């Protein structure tokens, strides 16, 4: 697994522990005390490190190539998933996947952006960057869910909608806007979870919901820190400065009333323990669904409208 630069000291300590173990086994000398001390040290160091990550470091975890993707969560969190393909206008955008499934026995419509882990997969899923056709497929699924009273769950991990010639010609902006507008009209509960990268309109196009949650090391922003740095500072290398300035992590988003909660990740990030992560997300979804159980379609719509209506800071 890829080690992030700031994790190197931990890897070094763990290597040392491994060496001591080997030595102890080979020579028969009891080194358990020393090993224990090192393990204690490693644990403390990890805690210290992961609880005080800078935005730029969280960014690295959010983008970790081994981070669980949409299909991992489907496998761990749901049963009976039936994928629904295609926008019915000539394309099946693989960057967005969705269909009905059960979470803890309850039928839901689950839709998300999909990233690959290998080059081959990444080409298939276009690095998790949807085209307009992907958003239109999602819209078709939203409307299906609305007709059959299925709560909508979206899992979002995208660096944004794809910027390309075909995407512009087929209305990338319009497709996202249409989703924002039509999601507002859904009479079923909608829950959005940012599982990794939540970049700009590409992420928002699946996130007009009654509840929005962000994973502990995920981020949600109007523009990637690299993009922001290259426009405002005219230097993409200043991305970590931009990441600080943009206030993109869970706690800041919570403070500005943009999200409803931060979902805890396993020590070091979701990629260290898929099952723990999937379970935390599942628990959050079930609790949110319970909260909204008694709400009528109109109440759900009004709740969603009021939620976004309140957002923004200005003087008057």
């Amino acid at each position, binding site marked *: 697994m890829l080690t992030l630069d700031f994790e190197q000291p931990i890897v070094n300590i763990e290597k040392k522990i491994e060496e001591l173990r080997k030595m102890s086994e080979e020579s028969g000398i009891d080194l358990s005390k020393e090993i224990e001390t090192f393990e204690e040290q490693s644990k403390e160091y990890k805690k210290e490190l992961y609880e005080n990550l800078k935005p730029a470091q969280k960014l690295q975890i959010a983008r970790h190539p081994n981070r669980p993707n949409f299909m991992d969560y489907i496998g761990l969190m749901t049963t009976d998933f039936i994928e629904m393909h295609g926008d019915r206008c000539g394309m099946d955008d693989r960057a967005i996947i969705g269909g009905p499934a059960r979470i803890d026995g309850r039928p839901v419509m689950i839709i998300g952006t999909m990233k690959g882990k290998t080059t081959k997969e990444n080409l298939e899923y276009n690095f998790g960057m949807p085209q307009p056709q992907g958003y239109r497929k999602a819209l078709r699924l939203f409307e299906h869910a609305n007709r059959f009273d299925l709560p909508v769950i979206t899992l979002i991990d995208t660096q944004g909608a794809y910027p390309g010639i075909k*995407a512009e010609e087929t209305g990338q902006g*319009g497709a996202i806007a249409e989703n924002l507008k039509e999601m507002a009209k859904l009479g079923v509960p909608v829950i959005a979870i940012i599982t990794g990268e939540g970049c*700009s309109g590409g992420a928002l196009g699946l996130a007009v919901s009654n509840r929005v949650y962000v994973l502990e090391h995920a981020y949600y922003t109007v523009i990637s820190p690299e993009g922001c740095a290259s426009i405002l500072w005219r230097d993409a290398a200043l991305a970590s400065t931009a990441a600080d300035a943009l206030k993109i992590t869970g706690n800041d988003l919570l403070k500005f009333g943009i999200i409803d909660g931060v979902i805890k990740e396993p020590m070091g990030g979701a990629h260290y323990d898929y099952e723990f992560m999937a379970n935390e997300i599942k628990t959050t979804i079930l609790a949110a669904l319970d909260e909204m159980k008694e709400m009528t379609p109109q109440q759900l719509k009004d709740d969603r409208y009021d939620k976004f209506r309140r957002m923004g*800071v200005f003087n008057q």
Partner: protein
Amino acid sequence: MTLKDWFEIRKEQQIAARPVDPKIDDNIGKLWVKCYNCNAQLLRKDLEHHMMVCPNCDYHFRIDARTRIAQLFDEGTFEECFQNITPADPLEFVDTESYKERQRKAKEATNLDDAVVTGTGLVEGEKIACAVMDFGYMGGSMGSVVGEKVTRIMEEAIKQKIPMVAVTASGGARMQESALSLMQMAKTSCAVARLNEAKILYITILTEPTYGGVTASFGTIGDIIIAEQGARIGFAGRRVIEQTIRQKLPADFQTAEYLLKHGQVDIISKRVDLKHTLGTILKLHKK
């Protein structure tokens, strides 16, 4: 020193003496204006008389919100509202310059508090609610103020049961407000959903330039979408696309004419026809 050296030195001195950052648009306030497209020297008064369209080549100059309002509305009928909403600096954002300083400079340059003017008025006798964006204020970017004013004027349209018109000119979301500005896309689009449900006619007029967050929200979900002639409209900027796909883009890429060809807008209108086009549509949809 050879003669060649002398020329070399003179050339370098001339280069050094050039202004570092030449202003493109230093025409404002001058008697004569040079057309960006055909380089014709135009008398400012003539250009204004032609609605800021080059009489020589039909190039449509960018215009500010106040000029647009004067061109679109029946004289003296526009009543501005929600002027009391002004920008804050929730993130205390500083890049090469602070957000506060950028706001101050933008206000000085445009005499506006933010990038949109909202109000009601008559177009060919028909009452409408309207939001007009101003590219001169921080590139017409959408932050909390733009989102709030656009939403309020849409709610006003529902209350008064009058059609809503949005005239866009924007580089996209306002980065200095980060996720708060992203949420304005959701907020304004939710307001459009309410316009739909109340069966209020919503027309968008996309003008040079309309990009990013405005294209991906209230700009492109009008019941009828009009693009002004020559306007460039898109989701991602030209440079970003070129860098991503590493290909040269067609010259007319993202122009209003290009979008019409690909089915993304309903109508292209010249500036001189815009008011009448709008008036005709309003009358056709009158109940």
